[in-house]
Each structure stands twice: as C-alpha cells, then as structure tokens.
C-alpha cells in the first residue's frame, strides 16, 4: 500500500503565533475596558469613595437588570439575530410579579418560576416562528414585543402593585462583603464560560458565523433558534425578577428602556452584529459603561439629558474602533 507522503515543502513546525492579529481581534473588547477605566477614573476624581466595595455593590445592583437582559441579547447576537421582544417580556414579568407575589414564600417562588418558564417558552416561540416562517428576527420579535406589551397593559394598566419586602431585600443580601448582584455577575461569567464551550453553545456561534456551513455540518437550525431565543426570553424574565427588587412595583412599559441598551452594551463590548463573534465579558463591561455614564452625568451636575448623548457617542466610538480593527485585520490576511 502506498502511504500518502507529506508534501515536502511543508514542515510540521509551528509557525510563530500571530500576536498582532490576536490583539486586533480583541481590539473592541480592549477599547471597552479602556473606556470603563477612563469613566471610573473621572468618576473617582470627582467623587470620593468610588474605589470601594460599597460602590462596587451599588453599581452592580444598578447595572444588573441591564446585564441580565444583555446576556440574553448577547446569545442572540452571536447567533446572528436580534431580540426586541425582551422589552415586552420584562414589562410582563414585572406586572405579573407585582400582582401575584404575596408574603407567602412558596406562592411567590411558584410565580417566580412561572415567570421564568413563560420567558423561556415565549422566547422559544420566537425561535420557532423565525424558523418556520423564515422571517427576519427583527420582525418576529417586534411583533411579540407588541403583543407582550399589550398583555402587560391588560394585566396592569398603569405602574403599581408591589412585591414583598423580603424579595426587595434580596438585592442587598450580603455574603463576605459582596451583595447578591455581585455574586450574580460572577455567576453570569461562570455560566458563559461553561455555555460557550458546550456543543450547543458552539453550534449557536457557528450558526451565527455561517448558517449554510452549519447546516451542511449537520446542525439543526430550527433547534438552534429555539434554544437561542428561549434563553434570551429566560434571561429577560430573570431581568424582570431582578428589576422588581429595585423598583418594588410593576410597570407595563418599563421594558422598552432595556431593548436598545441591551444591544448597545453588547456592541460596546465587542459583540458583532453580524453574528459569530463576541463574549459576555465584553457585554458586561458595556453594561457597566452605560450605567456609570449615568452616575458621571449626575456628579457633573449637568442636565440628565446628557446621559443618552454620552451613551450615543460612546456607542459610535466603539463601533468605530471595531471597524478600524476589522479593516486592519482584513488587510493582514490577504
């Protein structure tokens, strides 16, 4: 039998690692880190006590609703889609919580589970519709957003209701000096570290990177959509459950405040809108950036309308950074 010989010119020695390429790949994430450092720096210069555990606890609590919503959004973006319906899900979650939670822990726990399950199911439904009808995710989730919003309005037409004090207290519960939001932050990172290394996580990323290739490799696109949007709905429901610890009440309209910021946080953190690329660490940094901008505007004693202006500028800057890096990287491979 004739054995295939290795082509003579090629050697099995390892070529040098392409450090510049790797750096360029991570440029958007590094830029986000830089921005965060800068904002914290300015904030710390203007306000005393910024570099403390208390501040970390406070800011994380302030950012956590967005972080949860943006975690789901990140999964969807990596899949190459977008989920607008999280706005409706968050609103719906808060009104169900505000009208159903009681002082009885087991009733409340049951309803919390119902909200989470609902989040997953509605999200999965989004995924199903996208696959079955072969429709744009933008359109499908726009429609479900509107529907969920309507349902929330029917349940609770105006802001109101309340959740029990012990549920509100959850957000300030402490363990070794860190409050529960900080622990949740760590849990999110742990989840991501695990999830993106599972076969499902890889299949989602691969489908976002090149759907046709993923299909040819045997991926069931319908299942990927189901899981992706299901998880997004689940995290939106989680965001609603956390949000009521901050507001104490339900609101049928509050969810819309998280739709675009969840996308912005991810993009600032280097997640590609075209799918296939991005990490949760970047998104969480992006969420911090967006939250701290609010603090900064506050301590600068300027009109709070400067906050969206500053957020927009930061978004533009990070999009610019990633496109510059992308171009540089492309020029190198060819």
């Amino acid at each position, binding site marked *: 039998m004739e*054995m*295939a010989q290795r082509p003579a*010119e090629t050697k099995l020695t390892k070529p040098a690692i*392409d450090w510049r390429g790797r750096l360029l790949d991570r440029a958007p994430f590094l830029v986000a880190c830089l921005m965060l450092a800068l904002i914290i720096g300015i904030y710390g210069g203007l306000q005393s006590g910024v570099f403390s555990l208390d501040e970390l606890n406070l800011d994380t609590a302030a950012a956590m609703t967005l972080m949860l919503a943006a975690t789901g959004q990140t999964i969807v973006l990596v899949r190459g889609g977008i989920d607008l319906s999280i706005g409706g899900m968050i609103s719906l979650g808060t009104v169900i919580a505000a009208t159903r939670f009681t002082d009885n822990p087991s009733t409340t726990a049951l309803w919390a589970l119902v909200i989470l399950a609902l989040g997953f199911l509605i999200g999965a439904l989004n995924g199903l519709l996208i696959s079955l009808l072969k429709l744009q995710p933008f359109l499908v989730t726009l429609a479900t957003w509107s529907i969920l919003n309507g349902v929330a309005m029917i349940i609770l037409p105006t802001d109101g209701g309340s959740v029990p004090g012990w549920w509100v207290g959850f957000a300030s519960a402490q363990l070794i000096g860190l409050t529960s939001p900080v622990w949740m932050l760590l849990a999110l990172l742990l989840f991501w570290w695990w999830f993106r290394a599972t076969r499902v996580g890889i299949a989602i990323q691969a489908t976002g990177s090149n759907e046709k*290739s993923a299909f040819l490799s045997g991926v069931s696109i319908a299942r990927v959509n189901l899981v992706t949007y299901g998880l997004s709905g689940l995290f939106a429901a989680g965001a609603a459950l956390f949000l009521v610890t901050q507001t104490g009440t339900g609101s049928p309209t509050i969810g819309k405040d998280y739709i675009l910021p969840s996308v912005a946080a991810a993009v600032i953190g280097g997640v590609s809108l075209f799918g296939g690329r991005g990490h949760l660490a970047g998104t969480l940094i992006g969420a911090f950036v967006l939250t701290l901008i609010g603090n900064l505007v506050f301590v600068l004693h300027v009109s709070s309308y400067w906050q969206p202006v500053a957020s927009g500028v930061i978004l533009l800057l990070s999009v610019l950074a990633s496109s510059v890096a992308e171009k540089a990287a492309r020029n190198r491979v060819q």
Partner: protein
Amino acid sequence: MDLVTVKGLSKRYGGIVALSEATFSARAGEVHALLGENGAGKSTFIQILSGAVQHDGGSIMVDGQEYRPANPDAAQARGIAAVFQELSLIPDLSVEQNIWFRHEPRTLLRTVNRGEMRRKTLALLEKYNFPALRPDQELRRLTLAERQIVEIAKGLAKDPRILILDEATSALPAREAEWLLKLTRQLAAEGRLVIFISHRMAEVRAIADRLTIFRNGSTVAAHEADAVSDNEIVTQMIGRRLDRLYPERVPTATDRIALGVKGFSSGSRLSGVDFALREGEVLGVGGLQGHGQRELFQSLFGATRASGTIELWGNQVSISNPRQALTGKDGIALVPEDRRGQGLLLTKSVRENLTLSVIKRFTENGLLSRQKEAALVKEMVDFLRIKAGTPEQLAGTLSGGNQQKVIFGKMLLTQARVLLLYDPTRGVDVGTKREIFQLMRDLAAKGYAILFHSSDMPELVHVADRVLVMRNGRIAATLEGDHISEEEILRAAMLETKAA
C-alpha cells in the same frame, strides 16, 4: 457486492432539471471517479448522498438497505461524509473546532475537552500526513487551499465508510494535490469507498479504479478505468469530440508595455517584484504556492496595499483600490481566487452579476436601456455557454464551474485591457477550459495584456508566452521559449536562484 447502488435518481429545482434518472454503483475499497461537464449534476448527486438536499424520485441502496437521509446528520450516521465544493467550514471557529464540529470530545461538564481535541487533531493530521496546519488558528485567517485541507480533515475525522471529494484538488497547489491523490489511494486501500469528482483528467487517470460519466443530469456511461481512453471519456462527457485542449501559441506580443511593475513590495509576502507585461502577451506566473502569487495579483488590482511603482500603458498610476484599477477604458480587471467570497454576489441573478459593475454602458441620457443590457447578457451567456435556466437564475444556485464562467464574463464586460487571471479554469470542465484558453489567445491577439496564474502547471506551460517563477516574494526566474517546461518551473521554484 456493491456498497452503493443508485437507480433512477431525479432532482428538479423549479423548472431546472439537475438530475434525471441517474444511475450509479460503486464498491467498497475503490476510488470511483464521477465525471461530467459543468452543471451535469455531480454536486447535486453528492448533496443528495450526503443528506444536504433530498431527491424527488429514484432509489438509493447502501449495503443493500434503502437509504434516504433527511439531513447531513443522518448521512453521517450511515458512515457517509462529504468534502463539499463550497466548503462547510465556520469562519469564526478554529481549525480544530472545525474539524470536530458537533463531534467534539467532551468533559464531565459537557464542555469541549480541549486537551483531548488537540490530541485527536494531531493524531489525525499525523496519521494521514497532512500538510502543516495550526490547530488553534481561526479559520478565517487561512487561505483557500488551507481551508480545503481543513475540510478534508473534517471529512476524515468522522472515519467514514464512504468519503466524497467534490473537486477537492481544484483549490490545492500541485504538491498538496499530489498528497491528496496518494491519500485517496490510501483510503481506498483501507477498504473505504472514495467518490472522487475532478475536472482534471490526469488526476482521474492516476487514481480511479472505475468511473461514471454524467451528462445533463443523466448517466451516460460507467467504465473500468483501464478499459477506456481519454478521448472516449471526453467525448462521452461533452457529447462531441474535442481535438486538442491547448490552442496553438501564436506570439502576438508587441513592444509596447502594458503593465510595467517595479520594486513591488507588500509586507513579508512580496519583496521587490519587477516585470513588464506587454500588449498582446500572455504572461504566466508560476512557482510553489504561497510564494507571493496571490499577493501580487491582489495588490496589482488594489485589493491589498503594496509599495512600488506601476506603469499602465506608459503612465505611472497609483492603485489603492479596485475602483481605481478598473477605471478608464484600458484599466486592470481581476478574476479572483475565492469566487464565492470575492467575485460573485450569490444572491443576485446572473444578469446582475454580469452587469452591475458596468451599468454605465447601458445607460442613455440617464436611463437604463434594458434591451441593450439583455443583448449583452445574452451574448456573454452564449459565448461562455453559461448553463443557467434564465439570466435571472441566482448566481448562488449555479454549478461551481458556471459560477466561474459568470466571473469571467463579468470581467470581460468591463473595458479593462489588462487582465489578471488567477486560476481562471479552476473547477471548469475540459470543453470550457479549451474555450477559455482559446479566448485568452484571441484577446491577446486583439491587444489585451494577460497575467495568468494557474494551479495546474501544464496550463502555464502550454498557454503562456513567458513564465515568471516566483519564490519568496520575488521573481526567481523568467522562462521563455523552449525553457518553459514543468521541470524548469519546478527547478526555478525550488532551487536557489541562478541566472536564467
């Protein structure tokens, strides 16, 4: 007994018949070549076998059992893996993640076991003597040839009983292609069935035990390889006789320099290239793959940045993007290597692909003349014999070779007179190859200047007037007249430069 038996296989796409009543049978332990013109239905056939599309009629038996895979997974479960013509790789995953995609070894936490995956990757690459690959490199950083090799590794990782190679050699440089041919024999000797599709007769001759010929979606013949001549095969493939592949080489070069290049450098890939391409000349560019040929073509077209001077028809020009290259009546046009990535808009029609970049030519007083456009499109489609249902068929649904023809046509419609042809016959059937070579000579006679690279060395030898051999980003030798031969090209490509 036959491992695969196919009877009456049919497949339509709307009004287009891709396969009609095709038959096929092959045994374990053989290399079975599948031959046919562009658009004959070869890829459709293997897509059905590998579960990527479903057939409308007919039956497939594997191991004497009915076989009708609903998706690629079902095919893999029956031991059938395909190396697809359009590649099934994920740009944002690493080489090893691509190889084991969906079959990754896992830890107790259900996450990918990276250590195990690396070990298995190296073992696989070692077992079949793969050319050097970095397992951790991201796929989108690789060249087309390297990707093709990864796709082959991915097919083999499934340890299939039937491996299908759809034009897998067409993206490979000579040495890697040779390796793949030996590998194919080795796989057959291991008792697997390898179904091998290629437009290169020499390859088919070197490795095939048996062959099946498709024409217009039907099987026209099946042969034992040593019981049939090349001529008979070609005649059955294209339905007529083909006298010779290469046109006569009548020198038509004038003294006028069309493209003068001096001190051309780009990063570490190109270092000081000088040459002059004359009006009416076909200038070949050869050498081992990865010695700057791609960079040379890309940067002459302005797709990659480079330093040095370019003189176009005697005037110094600076070309920093393709728009500038194409500008004017006598500009520079490129047939790129990665047709799906760079040349074609897959979701646009054949007509749009042909005319989008030259839309000005059909505009009169600001109005688009559909008639004029239709006439030119028809002319081009007929001239290149592009096999499309109508000019409105989406480019992405054409067979591989027909996609290549569309790119060629698109370039011909620009009014460029310096043509950069990077592997223009890749994936093109013999009949069309012959037409393309003839076309190149005709264009040269009309005063076009052509820079021509081919991964198939005999093409350079038989078509080019002169051949530049590249080595380490430089021109190592310029071969002329009787010195143009495969041996001379290889010698110049591999040995230290000596005066030519």
